[in-house]
């Protein structure tokens, strides 16, 4: 590996130590782990091979990107060049003026058939500052060897709330997002109306009342790795997590008694923002990298290493096989038609408005 994994504090020193004359260091921030590795394999390594004068430094600070970008902005010293964040964070960063506005058609590559970038990304462009990269989903994994289930298997998200047919501990994320949507859906609201129902008078209370029915049987997780561990140890019988984590548990680690429940999976996006206020030379270099890393082929390449769907429509037919397992990746994509029969489309704008308020109420409910 030619790469250097360097912590953020060292980047300044590295910039001074420099490589060849005229070389430029770009600090790319992402989530670390298997996800960063898929980006390194699909984007950064090929790019650095083609452009020896560019050195990409990896930083794994996406968890705290919003706060750090604001702090950098206040200090007037932006040390990051390209940051991987989820859509909700991108909206916040855009609102706060911390992320640069993107001119999709001029800054990004068109699809091979000439479709403009903005059309190719289509409805996934949810903010002026955000270049979507992958579609991931939060969905459920369950154990197939639960004796009390007497051979039944859950096939609907509402089975989470059915303690009689599917007794046992469940794992849900320790935040309101997705949970309140599933809960209100299971009170009889169609998936495409959940946000209207939640926004209506008493809507949230109704969702929390539904969650109340299983509250004593829920383990609340805070890290994406929790649910796979709890499932593997038999600590829970069913639990929500990111689909890539379940793929890794079931396919890569070969957990035979765990299956996926795709019903009402909640789609979300992950993608790039460029911090506002970069000096011109770094901005140019970053834009060149982004143009490469978000083209049709590169987005499809990433799916070789992780089971997240590419955000461009034109990338979908190019998705191939897993780089080491050799299995077809398409059936493991959340966007695969067989998996996406019934999906929850996450309403970013709605959450941007109500997240803090609902979070306060949700935490109050949890603490009771």
């Amino acid at each position, binding site marked *: 590996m030619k790469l250097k994994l360097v912590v953020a504090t060292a980047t300044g020193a590295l910039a001074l130590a420099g490589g060849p004359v005229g070389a430029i260091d770009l600090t790319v921030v992402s989530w670390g782990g298997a996800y960063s590795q898929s980006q390194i394999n699909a984007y950064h390594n090929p790019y650095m091979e083609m452009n020896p004068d560019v050195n990409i430094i990896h930083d794994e600070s996406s968890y705290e990107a*919003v706060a750090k970008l604001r702090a950098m902005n206040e200090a007037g010293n932006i040390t990051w060049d390209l940051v991987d964040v989820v859509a909700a964070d991108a909206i916040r960063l855009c609102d706060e*003026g911390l992320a640069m506005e993107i001119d999709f058609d001029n800054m990004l590559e068109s699809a091979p058939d000439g479709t403009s970038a903005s059309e190719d990304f289509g409805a996934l462009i949810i903010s002026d500052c955000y270049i979507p990269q992958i579609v991931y989903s939060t969905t459920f994994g369950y154990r197939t060897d639960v004796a009390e289930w007497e051979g039944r298997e859950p096939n609907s998200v509402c089975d989470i709330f059915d303690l009689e047919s599917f007794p046992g501990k469940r794992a849900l994320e*320790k935040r309101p997002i997705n949970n309140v949507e599933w809960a209100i859906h299971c009170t009889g609201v169609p998936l495409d109306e959940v946000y209207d129902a939640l926004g209506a008078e008493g809507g949230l209370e109704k969702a929390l009342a539904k969650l109340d029915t299983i509250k004593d049987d829920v383990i609340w997780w805070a890290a994406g790795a929790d649910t796979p561990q709890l499932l593997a140890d038999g600590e829970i019988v069913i639990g929500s997590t990111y689909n890539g984590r379940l793929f890794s548990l079931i396919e890569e680690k070969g957990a035979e008694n765990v299956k996926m429940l795709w019903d009402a999976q909640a789609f979300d996006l992950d993608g790039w923002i460029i911090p506002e206020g970069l000096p011109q030379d770094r901005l140019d270099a970053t834009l060149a990298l982004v143009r490469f890393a978000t083209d049709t082929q590169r987005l499809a390449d990433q799916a070789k290493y992780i089971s997240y769907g590419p955000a461009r429509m034109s990338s979908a037919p190019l998705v191939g096989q897993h780089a080491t397992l050799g299995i077809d990746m398409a059936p493991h994509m959340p966007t695969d038609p067989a998996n996406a029969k019934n999906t929850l489309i996450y309403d970013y704008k709605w959450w*941007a408005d109500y997240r*803090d308020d609902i979070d306060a109420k949700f935490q109050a409910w949890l*603490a009771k």
Partner: protein
Amino acid sequence: MATAPGTIADAPEGGAELRRRLRRSLRWQKTRALLLIAPLLIFILVTFIAPIADMLFRSVENGIVSTTLPRTVAALAQWDSRADELPGENVFEAFYLDLSIAVERKAHTRVGSRLNYESPGIASLFRRAGRALTEFDTGSYRDHFFAAGEAWGSAEHLAGLFEDPSASKLLPETANAFRAWHGRNAGRNRPVADYVYVSLARELDAAAAGNELDGLDGPHARSLADAAAGVGDIAEISFREAFVEASEGWGERDLWRTIQVFSPRFTEGYFLNAVDMKKGLDGFEARPDNERIYGVIFARTLFMSLTITVGCILLGYPVAYLLASLPLARANILMILVLLPFWTSLLVRTSAWKVLLQQQGVINDILVTIGIIGDGNRLIMINNQFGTIVAMTHILLPFMILPLYAVMKTIPPSYVRAARSLGASSWTAFRRVYFPQSLPGIGAGCVLVFILAIGYYITPELVGGTKGIFISNRIAYHISSSLNWGLGAALGTILLAAVLILYWVYDRIVGIDNVKLG
């Protein structure tokens, strides 16, 4: 080396000289001492005192509303928020101007996010209004000025006008609006934005009414007078209607009330929020039941920190006693065992507790195997308060053992032997002789453990479940997720105050001089 001052004063000859030299040498000593501690002093100032001061300041600071919406704030001051009516047209017009300038500077969504903390939904109102502004039917203002002279359509003319100090003084707000526009659009060959003309009409009208135009001279007096003629006859549009048409939310009094309440530069709003209260129409009021969390979590944080401290004393005291009384070689081995957790990552230790305590974990498995509990009634020991207390007691234990050990090492064993030889039972000897001498160690350990525990964050997050979370978890949420740094700062300030009060109480009861770290 102290020299009594008397001796110098008594010296008849050279006394003054001696005094001077002594003063100089003392001053030099002081400077040297100061220089020696200077690096530490500067370090503490920069990394400790300054951030805390900044945090205290952020918890009340609220400049963003009045700096982004200055005209609106001024206009809203006249509005009676108890009245049944919406603010007047002048407020909406001022708001149109403020918002247009804010959009130009990309500040409108920031002020929207700020107000969204107080009243959910405002963020998207600001975001949407920012897009809708250009659709407002403000052509009549522009047309008036175009009719008054072609030059009014040129950015260069306006730039020239506002370089003239007398014009800038006469029309300060328009100068400000034009500069906002010019800053973003200079040299791009775009038509001047309508809000500049709206502002111009508004200010010229007021200036004409006050006869301020009469005494004006200079190169632009003529053109201004021309433009001012008939400015009152412009077919004004209703900005209120335009806003309400863009989003109904602008027609709600509560929204304007929120802007009015949070317009001062400093606010107690964050602190109110941090104690589950809010500012209502009639002063402060408690939040509805389903939004109250911080009181409960503060109480829980204190309770659990105290429990953890007591747990550390109970477990740490015997270990420290053993350490202090064993022969050195064996004590050293034991010491390594005490220190070992220190060298292990916090996350690893916490995860280890998960493996031990979970329902399918080691302890439950053992209990089931030896038949103490049935397979159906496995104990729930993690993801609750119990798990948090166990994991944190383990993690903080060395902070109790080390000061205790250091103090116990200094207690001469002959005291207890003397007590025993004078007839005391071993319990009495311990209680009356040994224990009182080890108290300073307990004191130091308690302060260390309690203060570390009260600010703990990672372990409660991982094993705390719903009832084991600490106030730091909420602070972290507000710092890194919601970006509501004001509320995070207010919670932090309250936590700091609570610790200082407890420290004071501790000092009164135990006495801080009675604390020894070794």
